[in-house]
């Protein structure tokens, strides 16, 4: 029997879909059987980030309403044998699925997979309620911004009220240089307010933009620092104790000179 984990945030655009794709792929890299579920009905993105948009025939609304069997809706990843995607519907909206249907769906998926990772939509309305209905554990993603932390706090309150105890935090898109200057929130300040366990910290990385556009999750890219952070997070999810990676960019004198002259990006 597997674990059902929901990736949520409250605020939009902080990196829930990117996180879902990357930790799902990261767990598949470690040899586990993983299914990713996109519950952002009407605004589906997980299929694009995974590079599987051309392979969608059936979606989550078909599967929960019984128009197709669940196995027919699951799309196998193009790189991994044991990684599957259950896409959202693009032509419906979030009222097309009910929380009870999500509970039943997660029960079915739990039986066949080690990890069921649910990509939650932004907001706290029906889409959010659907996504958390079948979940056992929660990951809250936030960026080091006051607005994002405020929304994350709201969501943590709602998760606790829904009996999803002990959510874990991922801080995304952090820029250590800005934190040092005091322009960006410190990790400790964020944990002070949110008061939940830290699962990982992902640095800002241009590779993410490239990877999401191409449909190749950054965990597969050895040069990507965000990818490395996500690989570490995947290992922590399996229970391994991995120290937080060093976020220093390690520029050095030549790098700084090049930046001043304007040769490097």
């Amino acid at each position, binding site marked *: 029997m597997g674990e059902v984990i929901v990736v949520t945030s409250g605020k939009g655009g902080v990196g829930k879909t990117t996180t879902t794709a990357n930790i799902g792929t990261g767990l598949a890299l470690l040899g586990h059987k993983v299914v990713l579920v996109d519950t952002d009905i009407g605004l589906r993105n997980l299929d694009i980030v995974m590079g599987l948009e051309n392979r969608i025939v059936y979606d989550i609304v078909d599967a929960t309403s019984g128009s197709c069997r669940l196995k027919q809706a699951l799309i196998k990843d193009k790189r991994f044998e044991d990684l599957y995607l259950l896409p959202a519907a693009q032509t419906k909206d979030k009222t097309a699925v009910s929380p009870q249907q999500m509970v039943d769906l997660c029960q079915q998926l739990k039986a066949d997979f080690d990890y069921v990772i649910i990509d939650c939509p932004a907001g706290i309305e029906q889409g959010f309620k659907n996504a958390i209905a079948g979940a056992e554990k929660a990951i809250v993603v936030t960026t080091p911004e006051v607005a994002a932390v*405020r*929304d994350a*706090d*709201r969501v*943590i*309150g*709602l998760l*606790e009220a829904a009996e999803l105890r002990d959510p874990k935090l991922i801080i995304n898109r952090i820029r250590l240089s800005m934190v040092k200057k005091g322009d960006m929130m410190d990790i400790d300040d964020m944990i*002070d*307010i949110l*008061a939940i366990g830290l699962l990982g910290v992902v640095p800002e990385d241009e590779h993410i933009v490239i990877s999401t556009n191409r449909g190749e999750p950054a965990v597969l890219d050895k040069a990507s620092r965000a990818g490395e952070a996500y690989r570490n997070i995947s290992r922590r999810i399996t229970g391994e104790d991995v120290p937080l990676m060093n976020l220093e960019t390690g520029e050095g004198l030549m790098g700084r000179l090049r930046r001043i002259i304007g040769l490097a990006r």
Partner: protein
Amino acid sequence: MISPQQNGQPSWQVGLPEKFSPSFHLSGTQPDPLRPERTGRERKEQGPNGVAMDYRTVLIQRTVRSGQSIRYPGNVVVMGDVNPGAEIIAAGNIIVMGNLRGMAHAGAAGNQNAVVVAFRLKPTQLRIAEHITRAPDGETVKPNQPEIARIQDGFVVIERYQPNSLRFPAF
């Protein structure tokens, strides 16, 4: 925020305190959810320290998160933080044994003697009875001691919290 004075001088005035009519009305036939229950004997509104008294008290032993609202017709004690976006609305006093970063409204049924006490008082907005106040623009609040907010001479005043200070001298 202007640093709190030791001698009780008004120190947290932000222009003129805004007066607002409470959204819940005391008069009329509707029961006021925040009105403290009346006992048969005469109630004292003010104790020896000038603080509102004779209320029930509720103890909340967790952090109050953004979007949560605690409303009580008496005193509220929070053993935890009150995060920004959360609100505590009490007919009596509010005591936060942690960081008060949200909104607190003490004396919400009109009691001017209500106070707000916190280990670290850095609210988005503070209200006592019908007075509303906030930190001055542009200043980040970094208190390093427990503080108490009360009404004095018609203004909201914030000072260091001293447990045994008597507001009125013995004569």
